[in-house]
C-alpha cells in the first residue's frame, strides 16, 4: 500500500507537490510574521481568510473532478453537499456563541427572534465538536448515497442527471430559506464568535484554519491521486467512455458510480465545513443553482480529468472573480459566461490542456 502511494508521483512530482505544500503552510505564514509591515513581501492577516477560502474551493473542484472529469457524471448540485457540511459546522459555531449573542440567551439569536422556547431536537448534540465532526463526515455522504442510489439505479445519465441535481439543490435551497426549517432562514447562520474556545477574530485562529485547510487539501489530493491511478480509477474512466462495455465486462457499474459519487460528496462536505468558519457565515444562497454551476465551471476551465487542472481552475476563476467584483462588478457574470463558452469550444481540456499541448509541441520541435 505504502509502495503504491510512493509510486503515485515521480520523484520530481513529489518534490513539486511538497514544495507547494511547504510554501502554503510554512513560507506564507512566516512572511506574515517576520516580513516588515511595509515590505512587499509582507502578507497581511486578511489574506489568509481569502487563501483559505480558495483552498476550500479547490477542494470542491477536486471532488467534482472525480465524479465529472473521471467518471463522466456531471453534477450541478455539489453546492448541496458543500452547504450540508457548512451548515453542520455553522450549527456548532452557533452553539459555541453561548450567551454572548445579542439577546444574551442560551438559544441562538434567530430562535429568540422567532419566539422559540427551546432548541429543536435536530440541534441537539451540536454543542459538542466531536458530534459535529461526525455529522460533517457522515451527513453529506449519506445524503449523496441515498440520492445517488435511486438516480443511478434508475440509470439516469448525462443531461438528465445534471438537471435533477439542479432540482435537488434548488429544492434544498427553498427548504433552508423557510424560517420554520430551523436553520436561520434566509439570513442563515452567522455572528460566530469562537471555535474550540479560540476567538474567530484572532489572526492566529484564522491562520490556523488556513493551514488546516491546506493540509486537508493536500491529503485529499493524495487520496484522489491514489483513487484515479488504481484500477478503480481506470474502471471509472472506462465507465465515462463506454459504460456498456464495463457492464458486459462484469463490473457492477452502479456500485462504482455510487462509491465515487459518495466520496465526492464527502470531500465536498468537508470543504464546506472548513469554509464556514473562515468566511463567518453560511446561508441558503450557497445552494443557489448557479453556485453549483460555477463549481463545475472551475473544473472545466482548469481541465477535466486532471487533478491539477481542477485545483488550478478553482484558483484561476476565483482569483478572477475577486478581481472583477472589485474592479468591474457588473461584468463578472458576463465574463464567467464567456469564459465557459470559450473554454468548452476551444480548449476542451482546459487550462492544463493548453500547457500540455505546448509542451508536446516543444518536444516535437526539439526532435524534429
Amino acid at each position: 500500500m505504502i509502495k503504491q502511494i510512493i509510486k503515485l508521483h515521480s520523484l520530481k512530482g513529489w518534490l513539486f507537490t511538497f514544495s507547494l505544500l511547504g510554501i502554503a503552510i510554512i513560507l506564507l505564514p512566516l512572511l506574515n510574521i517576520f516580513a516588515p509591515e511595509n515590505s512587499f513581501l509582507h502578507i497581511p492577516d486578511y489574506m489568509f481568510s481569502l487563501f483559505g477560502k480558495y483552498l476550500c474551493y479547490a477542494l470542491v473542484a477536486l471532488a467534482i473532478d472525480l465524479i465529472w472529469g473521471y467518471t463522466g457524471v456531471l453534477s450541478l448540485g455539489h453546492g448541496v453537499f458543500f452547504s450540508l457540511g457548512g451548515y453542520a459546522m455553522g450549527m456548532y459555531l452557533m452553539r459555541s456563541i453561548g450567551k454572548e449573542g445579542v439577546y444574551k440567551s442560551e438559544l441562538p439569536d434567530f430562535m429568540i427572534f422567532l419566539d422559540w422556547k427551546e432548541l429543536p431536537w435536530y440541534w441537539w448534540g451540536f454543542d459538542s465538536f466531536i458530534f459535529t465532526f461526525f455529522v460533517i463526515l457522515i451527513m453529506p455522504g449519506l445524503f449523496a448515497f441515498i440520492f445517488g442510489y435511486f438516480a443511478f439505479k434508475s440509470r439516469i445519465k448525462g443531461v438528465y442527471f445534471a438537471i435533477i441535481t439542479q432540482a435537488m439543490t434548488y429544492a434544498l435551497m427553498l427548504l433552508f430559506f423557510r424560517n420554520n426549517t430551523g436553520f436561520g432562514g434566509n439570513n442563515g447562520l452567522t455572528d460566530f464568535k469562537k471555535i474550540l474556545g479560540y476567538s474567530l477574530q484572532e489572526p492566529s485562529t484564522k491562520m490556523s484554519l488556513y493551514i488546516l485547510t491546506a493540509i486537508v487539501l493536500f491529503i485529499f489530493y493524495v487520496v484522489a491521486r491514489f483513487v484515479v491511478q488504481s484500477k478503480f480509477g481506470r474502471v471509472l474512466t472506462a465507465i465515462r467512455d463506454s459504460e456498456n462495455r464495463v457492464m458486459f465486462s462484469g463490473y457492477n457499474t452502479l456500485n462504482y458510480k455510487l462509491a465515487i459519487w459518495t466520496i465526492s460528496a464527502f470531500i465536498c462536505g468537508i470543504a464546506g465545513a472548513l469554509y464556514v468558519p473562515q468566511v463567518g457565515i453560511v446561508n441558503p444562497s450557497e445552494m443557489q443553482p448557479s453556485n453549483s454551476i460555477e463549481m463545475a465551471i472551475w473544473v472545466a476551465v482548469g481541465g477535466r480529468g486532471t487533478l491539477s487542472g481542477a485545483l488550478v481552475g478553482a484558483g484561476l476563476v476565483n482569483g478572477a472573480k475577486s478581481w472583477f467584483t472589485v474592479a468591474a462588478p457588473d461584468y463578472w457574470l458576463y465574463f464567467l459566461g464567456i469564459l465557459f463558452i470559450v473554454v468548452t469550444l476551444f480548449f476542451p481540456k482546459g487550462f492544463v490542456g493548453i500547457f500540455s499541448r505546448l509542451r508536446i509541441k516543444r518536444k516535437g520541435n526539439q526532435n524534429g
Partner: protein
Amino acid sequence: MDSSGAHVKDDLIDTRHGCILYIEEVTVSFDGFKALNDLNLFVDDGELLCIIGPNGAGKTTMMDVVTGKTRPDEGTVFFGQNLDLTQMTEFEISHAGIGRKFQKPTVFLNHTVFENLELALHTNKGIWQSLTKTLNGKQREIIEEGLETIGLKNQKNLRAGLLSHGQKQWLEIGMLLAQDPRLLLIDEPVAGMTHQETEHTAELLKSLAGKHSVVVVEHEMDFIRSIANRVLVLHEGHVLAEGKMEEVQNNPKVIEVYLGS
C-alpha cells in the same frame, strides 16, 4: 445478491444435456413491432454457430436478450439448464460466463491496449479489490498471452483510440477472451477488416470452438462459409432455416428472403 464480484464456477452451469444456451419461445416487441417473434434457438456446448439474416431480422435483439440488456416480453432464456438469464443483470451474466462483442467495436479509447485487457481480465471485480490490488505475475502473463493471440504485442502501450478499425475489433475479441467466458456472442467481427485480417479472424474463431461455445452474427457470406459448421437463418424474429451452409443456401425460403427482392 452478491455484488462483490464472486464468480460463478464453471461446474455450476449444467450442460449435461449438451446444450449451453436455451432460448425458448422468446418474443420482444418495441411499440408493437416484434423484433423477436416466438424465437427458439439452442446452442450446443462447444459449438461454433453462425447466425445470418437480413437487416432487422432480430440478430442484435437476440444478443441483447441473452446479455440482459433487453428483457423479453415472453419466453425463457437459460444458460445451461439452471441459470435463468432473464432474472440477471448485465454484470451478473458476464460473471456467469457470457462475453459479448458489439457490432461497433467497443473498447476503452482512452486506455492503453494493455489496460483494456487488464480491465476485462477474469478476476474479482469488486470495488475494494480494484482499489487495492495490483496485477500479479500470473495475470500479467495471461494478458501478455492475450496480446500475442490478437497480434497487438507491439501496440500494448498505445492508446486504444489510435488503433485501426480492424485492430479495435481484435482488441475487443481479446478482451472477451480475457474474461474467460463459456459462451461468446460475437456481432459482426469482420466488418471493416481487410481480406487478410478476415482470414486471421476466421482462424482465431475456429480455434476457440471446443474450449468455448461461440455464436457469430455476420453478413459476410465468404467469411461464414470459411468458419461455419451449423448455420441458422433468422428472419422477422424467428428461425427460418438451419443446417449446413450448403443446405441453407439452397433452401428456397432462404433464397426468397435473401435474394428474392
